[in-house]
């Protein structure tokens, strides 16, 4: 717990009277360690600590009777302000169908979240067509079809035919059937795989999505920002889905990804069931990252 660690640090220090500036510096180092342990990238941790330092030095910490609490509050406020400043709701088109494209690394939870988002929208009165654009992973199409069956929504697939054409035809099909939303599930890929990233650019070009959601595993480590940046530069990410938040990972990757791309965190995956989807609450994530 950051407040405990800072409390312990300051009780050692304040034993000899008021805090000094170097004591504050030590506290800032402790905060940096806490962030790194939470998997926040080194550069995001540094820039965040710089923000806190600026406020801490101006906040009469040196006069405070409860310096640990004051610094932790500043950390929490700054993190909430940072994470919470963006539009966190899914955006839709006025002219249907609205297209949502899910992208990300292998195994991050794209297929599962295609189902989750489809279910959530259905509960809100929007019907979706799920499009199976992963032609590589064994039984990927079967997986999406199984999810479609579970929530009684159609799945458009053309087997292992060209996924770009499948995506384009999927949108056309939704138009034809009068379905308001298209959710395209794509294959997991590395941001450094030029051929597959080009495929994704082509899918985006032919489907003109209103949301390009980067699906990120909450337990991703120091590469999180670089990976997200790779996708963002080539596609333009409009939102982040943070998955597997039902585990005990601190989720610092979320801060790194958001800071690097500016894409708002929109949805949180909290389990394997299709109902396990939550809205994003910046104060909850802030508390979790700070630990």
């Amino acid at each position, binding site marked *: 717990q950051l407040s405990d660690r800072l409390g312990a640090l300051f009780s050692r220090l304040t034993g000899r009277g008021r805090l000094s500036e170097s004591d504050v510096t030590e506290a800032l180092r402790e905060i940096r*360690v806490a962030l*790194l*342990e*939470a*998997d926040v990238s*080194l550069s995001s941790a540094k820039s965040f600590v710089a923000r806190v330092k600026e406020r801490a030095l101006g906040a009469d910490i040196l006069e405070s009777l409860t310096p640990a609490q004051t610094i932790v509050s500043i950390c929490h406020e700054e993190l909430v302000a940072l994470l919470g400043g963006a539009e966190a709701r899914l955006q839709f088109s006025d002219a249907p169908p609205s297209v949502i494209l899910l992208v990300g*690394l*292998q*195994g*991050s*939870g794209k297929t599962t979240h295609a189902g989750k988002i489809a279910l959530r929208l259905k509960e809100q009165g929007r019907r979706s067509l799920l499009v199976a654009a992963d032609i*590589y*992973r*064994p*039984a*990927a199409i*079967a*997986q999406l*079809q*199984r*999810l479609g069956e*579970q929530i009684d929504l159609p799945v458009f697939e053309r087997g292992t035919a060209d996924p770009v054409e499948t995506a384009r035809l999927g949108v056309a099909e939704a138009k034809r059937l009068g379905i308001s939303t298209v959710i395209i599930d794509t294959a997991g890929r*590395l*941001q*450094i795989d030029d051929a597959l990233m080009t495929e994704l650019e082509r899918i985006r070009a032919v489907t003109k999505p209103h949301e390009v959601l980067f699906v990120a*595993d909450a*337990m*991703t*480590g*120091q*590469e*999180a920002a*670089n*990976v997200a940046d790779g996708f963002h530069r080539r596609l333009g990410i409009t939102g982040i889905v943070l998955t*597997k938040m*039902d*585990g*005990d*990972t*601190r989720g*610092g*990757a979320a801060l790194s990804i958001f800071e690097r791309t500016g894409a708002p965190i929109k949805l949180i995956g909290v389990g*394997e069931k299709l109902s396990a989807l939550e809205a994003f609450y910046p104060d909850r994530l802030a508390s979790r990252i700070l630990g």
Partner: protein
Amino acid sequence: GGSERPLDAEFWEEFEEALLAADLGVGTSERILEGLKTVARQEGWRSAGQAVERFRRDVERFLDLPGAPILLDRKPTVVLVVGVNGTGKTTSIGKLAARYTAQGKSVLLVAGDTFRAAAADQLAIWAERSGSQIVRGPENGDPAAVVFDGITAGIARGVDLIFVDTAGRLQTKNNLMEELKKIRRVTERALGRAPDRTLLVVDATTGQNAISQAMLFNEVTPLDGLIVTKLDSTAKGGVVLGIVERIERPISYVGLGEAIDQLEPFDAREFVATLFD
């Protein structure tokens, strides 16, 4: 920098940042750095190259633990594959199976993930690709029952090697870890002994949570080794140092891609060499 670069404060700072960027974690990075600085003083190093060389040697030695590969010294050899969601368990089993069928061994895959959509279908395709047999059960059935039946069938058929695929599960989910305990018990009952290898599959892109994964899985079903997947990504997988530190088990194999032939036995030298590029 070059090996002629001086061993100064700027180098140490850059070195620390490289360790952190590789996901070694704050604690492990600090310990390694302190250790190197102490030796640097004692032995009077002047060049950065000396520190890097010593680091490589120390880590290689540290990671080079015995008991890593799957040996077919019992029939059937049974390998239980576990780990959190999406790490590459099913794919790694397909790749491993192919290595052994290529040697003329008979391999059976047991579809112990009865929960996730199309999990058994996915494993069935890997069975086909690798020339392995497969035992599967009904969707949403009891995974322990499938595992028991699968191992029993494998023994009856006289197969050389059995891989048991299990559902991904977060280590903090008590009910799922209890299910894994049951799968382990059932494996022992069907086999009349412990499984030959229990391998934890860890995704190289994972941060510090991998340590908690290793520790909690190890408590529930004693691990014999790790498979580190997705090392073809830009992630370095440095968290495995912290894992090995805690559970003292070797890294058995590494996954280097999605194709059937992209799995290699772990090579400590290779791993350490790529930690910094």
